[in-house]
């Protein structure tokens, strides 16, 4: 048993969360800095993981394994493959910016009592979420994963319900009501999904006798573990349902707009850029890894749902009046792409999907956080309340535009790479699906540019005339994100190198080969 690096990556933020929560009420700023430092430390650890991981090596590396609840056949088993590494990196990268962006989101109002310590709670919860998410990317034990998958709902729930966006239309009570509605909706949707998954998890235990991903996959591979077709399908559905709620996939998506609309921008980013990724990640690792046959069986239906998500999400994004809800629906559309790529079952599709998870995380963060800065200035989430911002706050407008262009996956920015891979991967197996999905890029352009036009251009609205441009702290949040977007857009190699082998493994899990070109390729290079 080597040095428990993976455990540490999750333990640091967890410990940080507890410490942050313990900071006395008066020392609010100290809590903020503590949280920031912890998240940075986690980032360093994640970097170490990224470096220590050898793309060519074992499928799961840096593994750890301890007995936990032997009665349930549960072990504390950790290990990362390329996909996990990439997503851990994403999480660890985003959290510091989320914390920085939410610097003032949880400052207590004058009215609240002295013993109520929202700030400490806010940052502690964020760190707690980070810890759980990272650990869930590392878990190679189905039960352990499930536990985290469910447990992370609680801190998220308090983040959504407890620290709403202060910019809202209508009275405070009204806003509070909407907020708790959103929080409850979030929790119940995911809890129901999780509970159905619980049934499947138990079923899996009955069938397999243990929860170790590696062992089960192995047993399935060498035929020592037979699964009746229907059993496998039921279990698959149980798992997939939970992940589809989390991802979210049409028609299980309606919790996302509420949650993202009511939460503060950083928390919204946390939801869509980090936590939801656990769902798509789990589809790739557990659905395909444990139930290859059933996955193939369900593929057509899932492809259709994914396509619906893409188009439907984009169209609804066009129809939104609320900036944050618009971004939420855009994310639904993007998750459609990710799921499409996963279930296209081609190398390009799945590599694309994995990159997409990372890139979508960063691009949405950029767009949403800038939007958050804008909203916090004007105190309104309604698109109609803005206009001509680029005149008074050019830098803000510029960064917002870049975020938007990333969202519509302009070549040169990271999302293009992943989106194109997904499209190509899908087309090569399901041409029609590929073509339908391409309409998504037009719609994306539509909702992004309409949003930009309505908020940033045109004559300057009276209320926005006094808005200040981005401050140093805010620049410190946005600029690095944009830098990463551009870098990964032009040179995604570091990421693909890590991801490719993992995708090969997944492909072999489902025993799928890429469709070969109809015309044998005459010497690739001229």
């Amino acid at each position, binding site marked *: 048993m080597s040095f428990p690096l993976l455990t540490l990556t999750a333990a640091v933020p967890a410990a940080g969360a507890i410490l942050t929560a313990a900071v006395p009420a008066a020392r609010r700023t100290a809590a903020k800095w503590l949280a920031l430092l912890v998240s940075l430390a986690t980032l360093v650890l994640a970097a170490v993981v990224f470096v220590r991981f050898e793309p060519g090596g074992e499928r799961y590396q840096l593994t750890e394994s301890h007995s936990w*609840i032997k*009665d*349930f056949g549960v072990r504390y088993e950790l290990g990362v493959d390329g996909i996990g590494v990439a997503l851990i990196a994403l999480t660890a990268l985003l959290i510091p910016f989320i914390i920085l962006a939410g610097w003032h989101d949880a400052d207590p109002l004058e009215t609240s009592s002295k013993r109520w310590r929202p700030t400490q709670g806010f940052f502690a919860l964020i760190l707690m979420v980070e810890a759980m998410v990272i650990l869930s990317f590392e878990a190679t034990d189905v039960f352990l994963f499930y536990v985290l998958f469910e447990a992370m709902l609680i801190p998220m729930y308090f983040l959504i319900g407890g620290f709403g966006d202060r910019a809202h239309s209508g009275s405070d009570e009204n806003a509070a009501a909407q*907020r708790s509605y959103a929080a409850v909706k979030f929790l119940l949707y995911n809890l129901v999904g999780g509970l*159905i998954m619980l049934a499947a998890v138990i079923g899996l235990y009955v069938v397999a006798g243990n929860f170790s991903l590696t062992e089960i996959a192995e047993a399935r591979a060498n035929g020592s573990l037979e699964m009746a077709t229907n059993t496998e399908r039921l279990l698959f559905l149980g798992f997939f349902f939970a992940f589809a709620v989390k991802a979210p996939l049409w028609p299980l998506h309606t919790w996302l707009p509420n949650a993202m609309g009511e939460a503060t921008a950083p928390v919204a980013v946390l939801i869509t850029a980090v936590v939801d990724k656990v769902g798509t990640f789990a589809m790739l690792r557990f659905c395909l890894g444990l139930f290859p046959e059933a996955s193939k069986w369900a593929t057509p239906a899932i492809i259709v749902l994914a396509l619906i998500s893409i188009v439907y999400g984009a169209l609804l994004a066009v129809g939104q009046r609320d900036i944050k809800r618009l971004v939420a629906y855009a994310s639904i559309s993007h998750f459609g792409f990710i799921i499409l790529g996963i279930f296209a079952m081609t190398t390009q599709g799945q590599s694309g999907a994995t990159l997409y998870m990372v890139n979508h995380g960063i691009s949405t963060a950029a767009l949403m956080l800038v939007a958050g800065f804008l909203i916090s200035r004007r105190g309104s989430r309604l698109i109609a309340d803005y206009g001509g911002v680029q005149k008074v706050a050019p830098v803000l407008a510029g960064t917002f535009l870049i975020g938007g262009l990333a969202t519509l996956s302009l070549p040169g920015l990271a999302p293009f790479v992943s989106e194109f891979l997904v499209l190509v991967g899908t087309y090569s197996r399901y041409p029609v699906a590929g073509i339908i999905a391409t309409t998504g890029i037009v719609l994306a352009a539509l909702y992004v540019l309409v949003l930009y036009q309505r908020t940033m251009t045109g004559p300057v609205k009276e209320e926005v005339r006094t808005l200040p441009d981005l401050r140093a702290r805010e620049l410190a949040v946005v600029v690095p994100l944009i830098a990463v977007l551009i870098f990964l857009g032009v040179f995604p190699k570091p990421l693909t190198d890590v991801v490719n082998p993992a995708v090969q493994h997944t492909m072999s899990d489902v025993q799928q080969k890429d469709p070969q070109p109809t015309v044998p390729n005459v010497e690739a290079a001229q």
Partner: protein
Amino acid sequence: MSATAVHSLWTTAAVEPLNKIPAPHIEYTQLSPVLIVIGAAIISVLVEAFVPRKGRYVAQVFLSVLALAAAFAAVVALAAGGYGTTKAQIAAMGAIAVDGPALFLQGTILLASIVAIFTFAERRLDPADHGHKVDSFAAEAAAVPGSEQERAAVKAGFTTTEVFPLALFAIAGMLVFPAANDLLTLFVALEVFSLPLYLLCAVARRKRLMSQEAAVKYFLLGAFSSAFLLFGIALLYGYAGSVSYATIARVVDGAVVSVDPALADTMGNDVLLLIGFAMVLTGLLFKVGAVPFHMWTPDVYQGAPTPVTGFMAAATKVAAFGALLRLLYVVLPGLTWDWRPVMWGVAIVTMLGGAIVAITQTDIKRLLAYSSIAHAGFLLAGVIAATPSGISSVLFYLGAYSFVTIGAFAVVTLVRDAGGEATHLSKWAGLGRRSPLVAAVFAVFLLAFAGIPLTSGFSGKFAVFKAAADGGAGALVVVGVLSSAIAAFFYIRVIVLMFFSEPKADGPTVAVPSALTTLTITAGVVVTLVLGLAPQPFLDLANQASVFVR
């Protein structure tokens, strides 16, 4: 006619010459836990009689805690001595079984009782009355509410220290209940712990009318149910010619067939067996609080003094499920195919009924009552598994659940306004803002009830469902999952209320408890988290304890 039949000395005496009555021998060591508690109970009655009022409270608390601790020590000693596993045997001429489940449950009951007694003894919460520190029990239960006599009693600073002996008797009965190895002992034990409970329900200090009403309902319905139980016992006796579990089991298996033509239509008559079984089941399901025998639960839980409610909710469930397990696994294993479908039905309606009705509750104590009903459903799912893992899972669940419950009710005692405890949910709005710690603790309990991972509630639920699925009751698992989804909704609602809604101006205050209640709550939280994070040792314990002696 079986040699091990209870009190066979009497029956043999009828035919044998008088001069050779074999003295019944009692294994005092094995029975020591029960004996200690009963002894303590009797002593504390004497204390009531002879110790001057001033000293009673201290004496009683000291005595009961000491006795319970001693009894627990005895249980541990027995378990360590292997009586739970290898040396498991049937004591007291077949009346009481001393085996794994019995010891495990007795241990659980005793621990739960100790913490419960702490809440009984709490005297810090209520504002001092005429300079006397008061607990949550009436100054003089006999006095008419609001009467001159009552006022005098309050002025004089009387307190109902009788609750301690009553509790001790009840505990003694509960200790016997899951260990009872023949139907008569079962019945007697049932009454021994029921009657004190009826009284305990009636002695609340505040809202006395409700308290008395709760007592009446509990008493009448309890008596009603025990009548069913008794008639069932009669029928089983008629079926098997004996009330000892072992004998009945053998007759059920067909090992013993009567030769006497006179018994042709009774002995081994399955109709008697089935009806009798159903009626006995009624009695037990009543105590468990399973639908449709649950209707007393909300009213009694609401009316009874909250410490008593917590005590009942935890200890009674443990005892009743213990007895149920023993009955189904020892007496009627041969009947599994008859009782399983029936229990399936009961389990399903209990899970769903409890969860669904709870949604619209507005009183925190009633809410917890319905949640306890839903949990009874989950436990039944484990009982139905009819496998050793089923037994151990139920044992584990009971252990986890009882601490969560007592803790939760202990928190309820803290939230007070002018009229005593503020149990209406609307009063709890914004509690999280006013006193985050208490709210957080309560949230932990609620999450455990809801079965969120990393709490004992999840471990227990998982264990039970796993056992059920193993035992081929997959459908039950699905229903259970659905109903826990529904249940989640109302636990969440309370959390929303506490944390996300603004505090009311006239909201309740959170009393600062003495060390006693604090201890109780802490114990609850600790157990909840420990069993959630590292349940393995306790699961091992439950596994070792999951074998019934026959």
